[in-house]
């Protein structure tokens, strides 16, 4: 593993939201592309905001969006200007410091979760997600992984679905029928 040899400067990740990351005076891998995307994005928004109502009236629904998008474009352009002047951070690479493999894998899991949630339903999708991610991250035994996954999923289900009646997508499991059956059981017993 080359990863262990590489020294990752974690101060650049930022410690909290009040102290965001970033390398002072250096340009991190991908930073330039990110800034350019922001500039383009702001320009598109400004154009879209102009399209809402043009310069029709001070009170038009497009007034504040247009002002906001203009501020975004100006500030993003200023950031781009600063970024271009900064030297590259030679000690960092994209795959080691910005998006290490683990982040990519977990991000892909999240995308898969989003895709499967509706057709498969909340319970199976979440279980798969927990099993896969805990197994990969902890590298512990399957027994541990399954116990922790099932246990915490049940807890979340109990709080959100039963107590707070949040109706997550049911997908392939006929949850409503099962719950009604359980209710009937209690009602019959009482």
């Amino acid at each position, binding site marked *: 593993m080359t990863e262990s040899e590489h020294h990752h400067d974690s101060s650049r990740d930022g410690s909290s939201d009040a102290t965001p990351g970033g390398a002072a005076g250096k340009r991190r891998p991908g930073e330039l592309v990110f800034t350019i995307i922001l500039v383009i994005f702001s320009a598109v928004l400004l154009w879209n905001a102009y399209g809402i109502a043009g310069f029709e009236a001070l009170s038009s629904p497009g007034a504040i969006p247009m002002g906001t998008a203009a501020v975004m474009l100006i500030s993003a352009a200023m950031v781009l200007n600063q970024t271009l002047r900064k030297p590259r951070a030679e000690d960092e690479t994209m795959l080691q410091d910005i998006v290490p493999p683990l982040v990519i894998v977990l991000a892909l899991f999240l995308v898969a979760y989003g895709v499967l949630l509706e*057709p498969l339903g909340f319970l199976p999708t979440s279980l798969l997600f927990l099993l896969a991610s805990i197994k990969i991250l902890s590298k512990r035994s399957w027994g541990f992984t399954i116990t922790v996954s099932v246990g915490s999923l049940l807890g979340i289900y109990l709080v959100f679905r039963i107590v707070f009646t*949040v109706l997550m997508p049911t997908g392939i499991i*006929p949850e409503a029928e099962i719950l*009604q059956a359980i*209710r009937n059981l209690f009602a019959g017993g009482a």
Partner: protein
Amino acid sequence: MKRFIIGAVSALAVSATAAFAADYPSKEIQGIIQWGAGGSTDTVMRAVTPHAEDVLGGTVVMQNMTGGVGAIALNKVAGMKADGYTLLMGAENPLIYKIMGLGKKDYSDFVPVDILARGTAILVANNNAPFDDYAGMLQYIKDHPGELRIGSTGPGGLPSVVTAMMEAVEGDLDVISVPYDGDGPALTALQGGAIDVMPAVLGASIEAIKAGNMKPLAVMDTEKNEFLPDVPAITSFNEGYNTYLPWGPFFGVFVKKGTPDDVVAKLSAAYKEAANQDDFKTLMHNRGFTLMNISGQEAEDFLTKWQQGTSWLLQDAGLTKSSPEEFGIKRPGE
């Protein structure tokens, strides 16, 4: 292949529990409330549904789904199976979605389970407004064109319909229309003097009127209201309003069209009995709503009449995005 298996499994699950009215409800029912927690629709639905649950012998899980003037909730229910396990708990707004360009569906895609109650509109003014009745307000608008600030809740909202009615009867009124996102915030602004006049639901303003925090100008109805016997009906100022009144917002429970008739009948019976409970009647009375509790053909006719009247009123006021004609909504009386 995967999709086929998923499809097959879910098909199995469905067919195993297909809705037969005899054992309806065999699972919990979802009730989607079109408006946010704490609003009028929310309060009405959460008050009536527990009684309906008792009659049905099932559970109705209620959720608020807001956005798009209620269109998000309506489309969600329209996208579910027509098995009576998803109820739409809504207000009058969907009937003007089509002409306002807010959506392609309205209550014609649904069957009314029960139209519970309707409200009456009232014109109220800030205490410091330099007039005390409807006639005085009209005189003020004439003498001070472009100065009176009337609250509104966006195109298609109750205030916009009332204002359209006023313009249809009295001719163009040169006023400033200040938009708010609901009659609650607008009535607050009225008391603080940010707006001068507000067309509101009686129930939302009645307590403040009784306390003398705002003054009533006229009830938007053909006769005086039992809750405020001292306030004149608008028709006493101008007979022309008789064409459009009575008019008012309403609340109802709906299911998707295509739901088995016996399921609809069972639901209707449950809600009818629920709305007949004394505490629900008291609640409606206290909030100034008129209990309707109608279903079946009677409810359908009510909806059609409401839609025709309001759509053409808005169309004539030039507030619509497309003409009611395009959707086959006839002019009233045609």
